[in-house]
């Protein structure tokens, strides 16, 4: 151990002396390596940030890893059993989604079908009546466009999807509060349901002045919602989030009026450690006659999904960066071979004074690897600078890229690339240096 560290120190000392003695060459080596190390650093940084962004989206839409997702059919037995099981529990939430229109009555919404406001998807799904479902006596059902409805003028109304939840969903899907406040689940339910909009819905409310009257499919009365706040939820379509207990006054979960879609079903999100809640839920569902075969259950693993996609991209881009790095390796190899050729006498002399061959190889490798490290430092500094300048622009591209610091893994990748390139470029010259016969000093 002591012997080894002594040799390592010797190699580093002599390597640094060599670098100082040949500054121009070192600079040339660094220039040839710079692009390669830079590309590795940038690819690592970019892939990480892309992953961060993708993961943030997936977590918002799907849920954080380990969350159990269950889909419960929209029958009264199933929904009642579920709601009863989860009542008063905070480690699992039942959620239901349904379309609603907020705004003037008797008009078609500006974004029919609940599309984003700068896109027009047309009257898909429930749009307050543009599509009607009719069934023939054999039980076959089909959509019918209601011509009369299409005569209805478009007015100050917005269609959105409303999500009602029995407990806070943000523990599973970490929505970011953008404005106002999030729902309070501790108070008594209000008759006027509180809603938190997502950004797209908020955009709609900003663009069109709509009265606070909410039309819900199947509901006979129209409630007056209270808008509490705005969140980032990763969705492109307008959405609104509310307390299920408040919305249940208006919407009939489990006994929806729609013969085609059946009743409005429930989705359940269960925290990984909520074993008791899950047991109760399963028991109640089983008691209601809903066996496992009628439930759709899966554990969310967002990270793996994202990583699988990212892996392919990574391989492609790192492959390209590796090629650029290889060109740099050729450069440093070339320079170092020439240097070793000029230093035959020095190396022979070093062997004469007792330097082992291994250390001679070590000296050459130390020089190339230190050069690689210097290059890495330069490339990382450059990349970090670009990152800093481009930061505000990145934040525009995706919210998850805002306020991020330069990923340390990218710096690490750069250092590894530099060291690796130094090692690779120095290997052949190192072997040559180790092979120089001592007798060279006697015949020089």
């Amino acid at each position: 151990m002591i012997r080894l560290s002594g040799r390592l120190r010797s190699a580093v000392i002599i390597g640094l002396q060599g670098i100082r003695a040949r500054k121009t060459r070192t600079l040339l080596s660094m220039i040839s390596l710079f692009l390669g190390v830079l590309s590795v650093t940038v690819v690592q940084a970019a892939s990480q940030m892309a992953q961060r962004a993708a993961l943030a989206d997936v977590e918002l839409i799907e849920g954080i890893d380990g969350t159990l997702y269950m889909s419960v059919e929209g029958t009264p037995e199933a929904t009642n059993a579920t709601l009863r099981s989860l009542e008063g529990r905070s480690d699992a939430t039942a959620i239901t989604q349904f379309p609603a229109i907020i705004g003037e009555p008797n008009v078609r919404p500006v974004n029919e079908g609940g599309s984003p406001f700068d896109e027009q998807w047309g009257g898909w799904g429930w749009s307050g009546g543009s599509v009607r479902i009719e069934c023939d006596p054999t039980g076959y059902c089909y959509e019918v466009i209601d011509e009369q409805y299409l005569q209805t003028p478009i007015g100050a109304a917005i269609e959105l999807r409303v999500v009602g939840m029995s407990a806070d969903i943000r523990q599973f899907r970490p929505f970011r509060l953008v404005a106002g406040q999030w729902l309070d689940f501790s108070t008594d339910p209000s008759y006027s349901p509180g809603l938190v909009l997502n950004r797209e819905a908020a955009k709609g409310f900003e663009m069109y002045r709509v009265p606070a009257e909410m039309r819900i499919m199947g509901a006979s009365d129209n409630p007056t919602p209270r808008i509490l706040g705005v969140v980032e939820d990763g969705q492109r379509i307008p959405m609104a989030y509310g307390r299920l207990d408040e919305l249940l006054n208006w919407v009939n979960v489990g006994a929806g009026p729609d013969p085609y879609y059946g009743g409005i079903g429930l989705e359940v999100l269960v925290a990984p450690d909520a074993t008791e809640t899950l047991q109760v839920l399963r028991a109640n569902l089983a008691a209601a006659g809903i066996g496992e075969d009628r439930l759709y259950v899966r554990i969310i693993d967002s990270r793996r999904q994202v990583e699988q996609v990212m892996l392919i991209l990574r391989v492609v881009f790192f492959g390209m960066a590796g090629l650029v790095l290889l060109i740099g390796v050729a450069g440093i190899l070339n320079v170092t071979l020439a240097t070793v050729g000029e230093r035959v006498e020095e190396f022979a002399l070093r062997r004469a004074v007792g330097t082992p061959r291994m250390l001679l190889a070590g000296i050459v490798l130390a020089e190339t690897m230190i050069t690689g490290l210097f290059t890495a430092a330069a490339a990382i500094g450059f990349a970090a600078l670009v990152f800093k300048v481009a930061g505000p622009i990145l934040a525009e591209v995706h919210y998850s890229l805002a306020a991020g610091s330069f990923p340390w893994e990218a710096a690490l990748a750069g250092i590894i690339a530099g060291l690796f390139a130094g090692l690779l470029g120095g290997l052949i010259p190192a072997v040559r240096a180790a092979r120089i016969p001592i007798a060279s000093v006697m015949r020089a």
Partner: protein
Amino acid sequence: MTPLVQLIGLTKTLRGQEQPRPILTGVDFTLHSGESVAILGRSGSGKSTLLSLIGLFDRPDGGQYLLDGQDITRISDGKAAALRSAQFGFVFQRFFLLKHLTAAQNVAMALVNGQGWLPRRQRREKVLAALDQVGIAHLAKHRPARLSGGEQQRVAIARALVREPRIILADEPTGALDTETGNLVVDALRATTERGCALVLVTHDADHAARMGRVMRLRDGVLHPEGVNAPFGGAAEWAGLPSDQAGGSSHEPRHARPAESEGVRA
């Protein structure tokens, strides 16, 4: 007393391109601590080859090499390096100073060789002591370009001395120097023997040979004793040899020096 170095029938054959050429055909040689030996011989007679065998740069084809009574004829590369570092000091005709290093750093080179690790301060002390030993401690910070030939060769000697070796091998160390400077260098080398170091000096200079304790001549691949000098290069009665043999180096005519004249090459 066990000799420091004992060579018994050492042979070395050069296996070049065409015919194998025997250089050393059976060298017997004994060296004790504190002894100084001059080796003379024509250019190409194999003096450097012999030194490279003694200094463990290379291994002999036949014969035996005992160092301190230990057979090291077939020693491994790594052990040879360790022995070179610990036991031997080398001085060559050319100085081989690294021009980007100061005198002190050049001397320290023998300490930073992967054979044990000395802290910076101890390295400094040893380096300055070695430079002091050859009388140029005041030049420690100078780079070779600012040193005269004699000073440079003394830096090289300090480099050979810094690990306090037991054997100094010098291959024509004065070949690139004028007479006066050459004498200074030989003085510096001979001074080491007073501290118990053994010295083998390959030279073409009869005067320098005469200042060694013994003189040997390499001829036809064999080492012949040429004479024994009295201490400090005086008359030869000391060893009981006829005086005309003691100054045996004078048999070597001056013009036998290699025509290529190392002085120009270096």
